C-alpha cells in the first residue's frame, strides 16, 4: 500500500506540472493549447536524442530540452495564435491551429529514423525507448518494504519548488502582475501600457517550459520515451486536472494533479485497471455538472 502511495504522488506530480502549464494558458488567454502535450513529448524525445545520439551529458541535455520546450512556446504564439488574433478569427480557430502544430510535432518524431528527414531529431521511429542506465543518477533504496527511486522521488521537490516559484512570480513581481492583468482584462491592461502581446508570449514560454519539463521527468523517471507519451498519458488527463482544480487556477491545477493521481491509483488497487481512466472522466463530468468552477476556480463569470 505504501508503494502505491508513492506511485500516486509521483504520477500526481507529473500531472500537476503539466496541468499548471495548461491552466496558465487558459487563465491568461482563455484558450486550450492542444499543442501542450506535443511539447511534453518533444522535450522528452529531444533530451533522449541529445544524450544517446549526440553524446551530450544528461544535465546539458535536460537543460537544452527545457530551452527547446520554451522556444516551442514562442512557436505556438507566433505560428498558431498571433496570426489568428491579427485576423480577428473566431477563437475556435486557435484550437485547430494548435491541433495542427501538435500533429506536425508528433508526426515528425514518429518519422524520425536513420536516414530520413528528421533523423537529427529522433531515430527510433515509433519505438518506445528508455534512457540508458547510468546516464543519470538513480539511486534506489529498499526501505521497509518500499522501493524508493531517486529519479522518481526527485520529481516531487522539483515540482513543488517550481510551483512555489511560479506562485511567487505571479503574485509579487511586476511580470506576474502584468500577466494577471492581462488575464483579468486585456483591454484595460493595454490601456495601462502593458504590452499584451509580450505577456502572451511570456505565458506560452513559461507554460511550454513547464510542460516540457514534465515530459522530461516523465520520460526519464518512468523509462518511457516515445512519440505517443503525450497523447496517451497526459493530453486528456490534463483536461481532467484543470477542470477538477478550476480552470485558470494554478494552485487548483497542482491540487488537481495530485487528486487525479490518487484517484487513479486508488481505482487500480480497488477496482482494477479497466476503470482507471473511466473513473477519472466520470469524476470530470460530474464535477463540471455539479461544480463547474472546480475546487478553486472563481465563480464562473459570464464571458461574452
Amino acid at each position, binding site marked *: 500500500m505504501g508503494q502505491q502511495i508513492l506511485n500516486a504522488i509521483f504520477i500526481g506530480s507529473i500531472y500537476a506540472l503539466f496541468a499548471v502549464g495548461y491552466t496558465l494558458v487558459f487563465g491568461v488567454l482563455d484558450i486550450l493549447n492542444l499543442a501542450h502535450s506535443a511539447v511534453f513529448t518533444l522535450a522528452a524525445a529531444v533530451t533522449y536524442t541529445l544524450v544517446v545520439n549526440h553524446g551530450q551529458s544528461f544535465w546539458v541535455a535536460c537543460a537544452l530540452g527545457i530551452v527547446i520546450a520554451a522556444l516551442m512556446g514562442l512557436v505556438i504564439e507566433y505560428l498558431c495564435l498571433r496570426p489568428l488574433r491579427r485576423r480577428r478569427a473566431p477563437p475556435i480557430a486557435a484550437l485547430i491551429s494548435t491541433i495542427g502544430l501538435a500533429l506536425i510535432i508528433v508526426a515528425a518524431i514518429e518519422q524520425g529514423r536513420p536516414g530520413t528527414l528528421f533523423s537529427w531529431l529522433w531515430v527510433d521511429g515509433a519505438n518506445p525507448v528508455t534512457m540508458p*542506465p547510468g546516464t543519470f543518477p538513480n539511486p534506489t533504496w529498499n526501505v521497509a518494504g518500499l522501493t524508493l527511486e531517486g529519479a522518481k522521488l526527485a520529481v516531487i521537490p522539483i515540482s513543488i519548488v517550481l510551483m512555489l516559484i511560479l506562485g511567487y512570480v505571479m503574485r509579487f513581481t511586476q511580470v506576474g502582475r502584468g500577466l494577471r492583468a492581462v488575464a483579468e482584462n486585456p483591454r484595460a491592461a493595454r490601456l495601462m501600457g502593458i504590452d499584451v502581446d509580450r505577456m502572451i508570449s511570456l505565458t506560452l514560454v513559461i507554460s511550454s517550459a513547464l510542460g516540457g519539463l514534465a515530459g522530461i521527468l516523465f520520460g526519464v523517471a*518512468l523509462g518511457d520515451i516515445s512519440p505517443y507519451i503525450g497523447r496517451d498519458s497526459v493530453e486528456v488527463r490534463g483536461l481532467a486536472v484543470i477542470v477538477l482544480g478550476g480552470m485558470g487556477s494554478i494552485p487548483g491545477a497542482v491540487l488537481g494533479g495530485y487528486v487525479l493521481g490518487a484517484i487513479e491509483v486508488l481505482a487500480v488497487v480497488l477496482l482494477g485497471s479497466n476503470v482507471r481512466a473511466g473513473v477519472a472522466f466520470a469524476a470530470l463530468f460530474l464535477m463540471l455538472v455539479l461544480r463547474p468552477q472546480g475546487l478553486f476556480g472563481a465563480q464562473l463569470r459570464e464571458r461574452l
Partner: protein
Amino acid sequence: MRRVRLVSILVAVVVAAACGSTGGGGTPANSYSGKTIKLGAVLSITGAGGVYGPQSRDGMNLAVDEINKAGGVNGAQIHLDVKDDASLQSQSAQVAQTMIQSDQDLALLGPTLSNSAVAVHPLAENLKTPILAVSTTGIHIVPDCNFPKTDPCRFVFRDSLGEETAIPDNIKSYAADAHPATGVLLVAQDDKFSSDGGKIVQATVATYNINLLKVIKFNKAEADLSPYVTQAVAAKPDVIFITSLGGIPAKIMIEARKQGWAGQFLGGNGFNTATVSKNAGAAGQGARSASAWYLGNSFPSNADFVSAFKTAYGHDPDQFAAQGYAGIKIIADAAKRANLTFSDLPGDREKLRAAMETVNIQTPLGPFQFTSTHDVKQTVWIIKMDGNGGFTLVHQIT
C-alpha cells in the same frame, strides 16, 4: 598478353550472358518472363507494432531481392509494396483494401498485429485474396478468421508459430527446469495478442502445478505501469508471465527488478526481438520465451540468410525478419507452380491459394509446410535474453 586478356573478357561475357538468361536452371514450362508479380505487405512500421514491422519488412525485401536477382519466379520479377498501418485496425483495413482492389496485388502479407488481423483477414477472405500472416500468433487467426463462425477461411495462411504452441512449450520447459510453484500474470486486456496469450497461460499453468496467484489486467496505452507491477511483486510469485508486446515487456521487467523482485520472467512472442531485449537490458537477463527461430539454428538455408541479412542491413536478423523472408519464399514457390495467367486476377488468386496449400520448401525456419488448417508446425526454440540486446538458446523442441 593482350590476346589472353581479350579471350578472357570474351569468355566472361559469354558466361555472364549464359548465366543471366537461364536464371539458374533450364527454361521451365510455364515461363512468366517479362511479367511482374505484385505483392502487397501491410505492416506496422509505426505505433506499438512498429517494434516488429520493420524487421518483417527487411526480411521480405531481402527475399524479394534475392529472388529477383536470381532471375525471378520463372522469369517474372516480384514487386513488393510495403505500407504502414500505424498499428491501427481501421488503417490496416483501408490499406489492405487499397492493395487488393486498387493496386490489384496478387496476394498480401501481414498485418503485423493480431489486433489488426481481426479486421484485415476477414476482409481478404471476403475479397478472395490470399493473405499470409507473418507475425500474428494469436488464436482464431487460422483457420477460423471469422470466429465465432466456424467455416474455415480458405485464403488466410500463416507462417508465424502460434502462441497456442509456443506458450505451453515455454512453460513446460521452464517447469521442467525449475519447478516453480506460483505465478502472476500481467496482461494488456485491450490487446488481442496479449489477451490471447493470457488465456493460454491461464489454461496451461495448472498442468504444470503452477498456482496462478493473480491475473493483473491493464490497458496497453498506459505509460505508468508501476501500480500493476507493485501488485504483482507484492504477491511474491516465483514467475511473472508477461504476454504483452511493444515497449511494455521491458518496462514491466525493469520496474519489477527495481522493486526488488528476483524471480523468472516468462513471455510470449512479444519478447522475440532485439529491441525488447535491449530495452530490458540487465533487468531482462534470463527472461525466457519460445521463438519460431533462433540466430544460430542449423537448418540448411539459415546461415546464408543470416549473413545476407547482415550484409544488407548491418545487424542481425530476428524471428520477425526470418518469418517475413520465409513468407516471400513461400509465396514465390506457390507462384512458380500456380500456372498464373497474369490476365485473370481472380482466377490467379485462386490458383495461388491452391498452390500455397502444397508448399514444401526449405526456409530459415526449417523445412516448411502448411498444416491442413493453413497453420505452421515447426521446431520451437526456447530462448532467453542475455541482458545485452541479444538472446541465447536454452532448448530446442522439435
